[in-house]
């Protein structure tokens, strides 16, 4: 019976399940990618580091440490990297790069892939440089060209295609140029204030030897100020990163699956309701409630498994495409293997979902009274059903279990389920509110076509709310992403503002300051800010040493206590208007007065360090402790006219401390920028220049890349929502066919019916988009305010475009599935009805 009945309803039943396909496809694709990445990580862990152990320091590595390491007889390579300007001699263009100076046989594991293949050997042989392939392509650099780095001109040896631990997003943010470490001093770049990171790469013979080396160097770590990283630590770090990203993506795929579940439940509910008459007949001829239930349950289950298999297959195909489409964001080279584990999980998940979410609506079949055959409006009194209660509990528990399994964490799973329930609840609430408003303020004066299309959203057995939630959720994800992207970009989007600085010159030595300012004057560039910078660390807070604070429970974050601070001195607020005093005052230095040094601190930092006006703190400035007090709190608009500072000292205190200078200017066109950069690199090669326009475009590019991946996954939700829509359209086909035929009978033409259909789905798309947008504005604001802590910014044109897109897609899907309904001849339906 199940089979025979199913045959008649196959295409319709399949649509119920097809909303599962996209959800399962998303889950399988993401799980497969995760398993592949983890496998690859286990296989190639050493290649990620290029060595068995790496020692890192921001200070030059002492000979004492080298001696200790040398005594362990391990192979050694080293590098030093820093930000620097490079000038491409063939075009005289210049830009900020990450300069990496290498020495020894790095990498010990993995491959440094260059073109030509002998480029690395050539680079080590003298004044030759290699550069990242993307940089070479961008500036059209060939092997005949030269680069000027600092005081030295290097001939190009070749390009670097792959380097252990490099590439990916790092290369996007800061493309690298490689030279030999022996040539670094010749550039003259390493001066006071230069931020250089030094690394030692160690190759040991065994894990035991690695442990021995660690035992030897660990006690020196604090004293000499270095850190170290093992293969295991890098693997764990990267594994944790992959795990976090995977958790996030898994949850996005899971959202699509939950939407599919809602689609299944909603469609099966309508299906079961329509089967009421048939069930009543079956009950009349002696079928039990369970027998009737089984007929439809078997149909849904079989199709659920078929749908899951198809979803898993689709997921496996997507998994094969992901490494090609997103190869630049994946730090490992993936193999195109099929993950059977992910497929099995997907099929099992799909099977469970199809059973679970069809259980409740199908259980209603058990309670259809036989008397319905005689009286269609007869309703039996509701009876308590243990199985119904069990199904309800399982449905509530399932998302928690499944999310916990997806994220491999009970807490994440639980929180996500609560979050998702809240989001769906809010969407349902907004959807209900919108529909209530439409009912209340129904546009009675509108033309018939518009009014009738709107009325159709309220037809009996409508799935309008479910559709608003499912399609709205997809719109919500995409719109929220857009808002976050705009808000974050708004933080760096200052280049368009008039008179604001867009170029920062840093690492200016005191002896170079006047010369650099003269150069700016000659080129008619304003010196918006010329500020000294002194580096220092905290050594005490409120009469306690940092060590004491670390031991107690004040909850001050470690980074805030141990970081290097870059401070400046002046007797006023910044003239750019980027800061204002919110508490206290800016006090001058009066020599001889007790507690004579009062500094100002930025708002936010005072909360982090738990400081108030009058509290004391001690800075270690180049080895000298200086006790100061907090005199004022400044609110700083960080993106506005940088540099801005966490701490500002009064004048007259730090003038004699070792310092560097930073200058900012505004350059309005590329020709002037290029001319100035060229003159700067020639005359002051150690001075670096940040073109904020370039930073902005890089950040923008980064957002586009990350956003692409998230949008790709949000697409699963949109597609699932649209499949649910297609299912709903088909579900309501007969009702709509009847309406259309009736309208045709009393004179409606095809154009009327097409307009009504398009406008009906236009409304649905519009309301879904509005539902998603309303929630995304709320959610986006909360995320900006409390998570990212940035100003909330919305690009209304982009949001309108998203809404328009959702609306058009909904209209198309609705119309596409309604073509038969529009073209059905009238008599067929009237006969069926009569």
């Amino acid at each position, binding site marked *: 019976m199940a089979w025979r009945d199913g045959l008649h309803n196959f295409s319709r039943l399949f649509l119920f399940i097809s909303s599962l396909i996209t959800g399962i496809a998303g889950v399988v694709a993401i799980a497969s990618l995760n398993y592949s990445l983890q496998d690859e990580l286990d296989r190639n862990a050493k290649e990620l580091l290029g060595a068995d152990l790496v020692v890192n320091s921001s200070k030059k590595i002492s000979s004492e440490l080298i001696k200790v390491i040398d005594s362990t007889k391990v192979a050694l390579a080293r590098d030093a990297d820093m930000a620097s300007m490079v000038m491409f001699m063939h075009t005289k263009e210049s830009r900020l790069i990450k300069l990496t100076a290498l020495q020894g046989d790095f990498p010990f594991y993995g491959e440094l892939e260059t073109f030509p293949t002998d480029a690395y050997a050539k680079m080590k042989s003298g004044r030759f440089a290699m550069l990242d392939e993307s940089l070479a392509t961008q500036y059209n650099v060939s092997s005949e060209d030269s680069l000027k780095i600092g005081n030295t001109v290097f001939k190009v040896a070749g390009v670097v295609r792959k380097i252990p631990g490099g590439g990916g997003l790092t290369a996007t943010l800061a493309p690298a140029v490689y030279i030999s470490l022996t040539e670094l001093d010749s550039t003259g770049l390493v001066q006071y204030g230069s931020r250089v990171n030094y690394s030692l790469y160690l190759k040991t013979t065994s894990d035991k030897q690695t442990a021995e080396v660690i035992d030897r160097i660990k006690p020196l770590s604090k004293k000499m100020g270095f850190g170290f990283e093992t293969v295991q630590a890098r693997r764990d770090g990267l594994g944790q990163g992959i795990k976090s990203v995977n958790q996030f993506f898994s949850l996005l795929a899971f959202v699509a699956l939950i939407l599919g579940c809602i689609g299944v439940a909603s469609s099966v509910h309508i299906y079961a309701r329509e089967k009421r008459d048939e069930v009543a007949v079956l009950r009349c001829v002696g079928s039990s409630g369970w027998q009737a239930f089984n007929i439809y349950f078997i149909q849904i289950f079989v199709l659920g498994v078929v749908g899951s298999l198809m979803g898993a297959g689709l997921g496996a195909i997507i998994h094969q495409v992901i490494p090609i489409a997103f190869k630049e964001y994946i730090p490992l080279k993936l193999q195109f293997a099929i993950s059977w584990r992910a497929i099995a999980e997907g099929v099992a998940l799909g099977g469970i979902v199809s059973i679970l979410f069809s259980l409740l609506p199908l259980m209603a079949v058990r309670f259809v009274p036989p008397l319905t055959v005689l009286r269609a409006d007869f309703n039996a009194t509701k009876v308590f059903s243990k199985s119904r209660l069990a199904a309800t509990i399982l449905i509530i528990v399932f998302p928690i279990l499944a999310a916990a399994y997806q994220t491999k964490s009970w807490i994440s799973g639980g929180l996500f389920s609560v979050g998702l329930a809240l989001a769906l609840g809010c969407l349902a609430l907004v959807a209900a509110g919108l529909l209530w408003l439409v009912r209340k303020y129904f546009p009675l004066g509108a033309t018939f076509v518009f009014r009738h299309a709107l009325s159709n959203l309220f*037809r*009996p057995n409508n799935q309008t709310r479910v559709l608003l939630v499912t399609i709205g959720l997809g719109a919500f994800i995409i719109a929220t992403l857009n808002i976050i992207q705009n808000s974050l970009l708004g933080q760096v989007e200052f280049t368009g503002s008039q008179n604001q600085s867009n170029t920062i010159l840093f690492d200016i030595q005191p002896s170079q300051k006047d010369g650099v300012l003269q150069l700016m004057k000659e080129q008619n560039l304003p010196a918006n800010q010329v500020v000294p910078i002194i580096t220092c660390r905290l050594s005490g807070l409120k009469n306690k040493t940092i060590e004491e604070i670390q031991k107690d429970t004040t909850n001050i974050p470690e980074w805030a206590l141990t970081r290097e601070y870059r401070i400046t001195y002046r007797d006023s607020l910044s003239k750019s208007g980027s800061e204002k005093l919110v508490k206290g005052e800016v006090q001058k230095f009066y020599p001889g007065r007790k507690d004579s040094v009062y500094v100002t601190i930025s708002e936010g930092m005072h909360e982090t360090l738990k400081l108030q006006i009058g509290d004391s703190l001690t800075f270690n400035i180049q080895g000298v402790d200086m006790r100061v007090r907090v005199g004022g709190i400044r609110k700083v608009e960080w993106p506005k006219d940088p540099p801005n500072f966490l701490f500002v000292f009064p004048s007259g205190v730090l003038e004699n401390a070792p310092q560097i200078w930073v200058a900012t200017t505004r350059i309005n066109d590329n020709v002037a920028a290029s001319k100035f950069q060229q003159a700067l690199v020639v005359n002051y090669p150690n001075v670096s220049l940040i073109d904020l326009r370039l930073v902005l475009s890089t950040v923008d590019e980064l957002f586009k890349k990350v956003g692409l991946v998230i949008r790709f996954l949000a697409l699963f939700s949109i597609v699932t929502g649209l499949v649910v829509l297609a299912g709903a359209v088909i579900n309501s086909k007969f009702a709509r066919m009847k309406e259309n035929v009736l309208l045709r009978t009393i*004179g409606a033409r095809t154009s009327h019916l097409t307009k009504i259909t398009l406008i009906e789905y236009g409304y649905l798309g519009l309301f879904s988009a509005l539902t998603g947008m309303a929630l995304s504005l709320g959610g986006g604001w909360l995320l900006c305010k409390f998570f990212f802590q940035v100003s909330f910014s919305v690009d209304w044109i982009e949001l309108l475009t998203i809404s328009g897109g959702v609306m058009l897609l909904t209209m198309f899907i609705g119309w596409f599935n309604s073509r038969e309904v529009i073209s059905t001849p009238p008599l067929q339906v*009237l006969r069926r009805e*009569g």
Partner: protein
Amino acid sequence: MDIVLECDQLTKTYTSGEKKLTVLDHVSFKAEQGTSLSIIGPSGSGKTTLLGLCAGLDVPTSGTISLMNFKLNNLSEDDRAYIRNQYVGFVFQNFQLLSTLTALENVMVPLELRGEKNVAVKAKELLGRVGLGDRYHHYPTQLSGGEQQRVALARAFITSPKILFADEPTGNLDEANAQQVTDLLFGLNREEKTTLVLVTHNLELAQKTERIIKMKGGLVVNA
């Protein structure tokens, strides 16, 4: 008297695989303006098929239909819909109201499809005439069968049709409601001078019309 409807040698055949089923076989008749006629016969005799063809809801396999001097055979679905909207009214056994619209809105639909504005006044007047002046804003599910059929009657007459097709208009009603609907149907028909084509099993109802066409097995057995 002007001929409103003329059927000439109408035949309708359905094909299922190799089987052919003739449900109407060379049926001819005419209806003049302002007259009334009934089509009666047992189930499967072709009554509803004939009504559908006459109203342009379907096309014949052979033969011609002329409605208000328009040859329906040659017209597209949209053109036939236009003619129905201009000249034809309908009343069905199952009322066939749009469930998403109120009683008033249901009555307004035919005029609104013509693009006419401010049609509520006329719709309210008609609803008043059928005794539903206090039920404008009720949805079909909130009305009884008899009330629904009276809404359908108001909808049928709002365009002042030249011809009204009624398919078992009292078939789903109890005796009292059936009588009320019959009175309204014939009363409005007389007032509006509409041609009435009535399909029914009910001989008593059929006898209220001026002429009876009796059908059996797709053939007119007595016209």
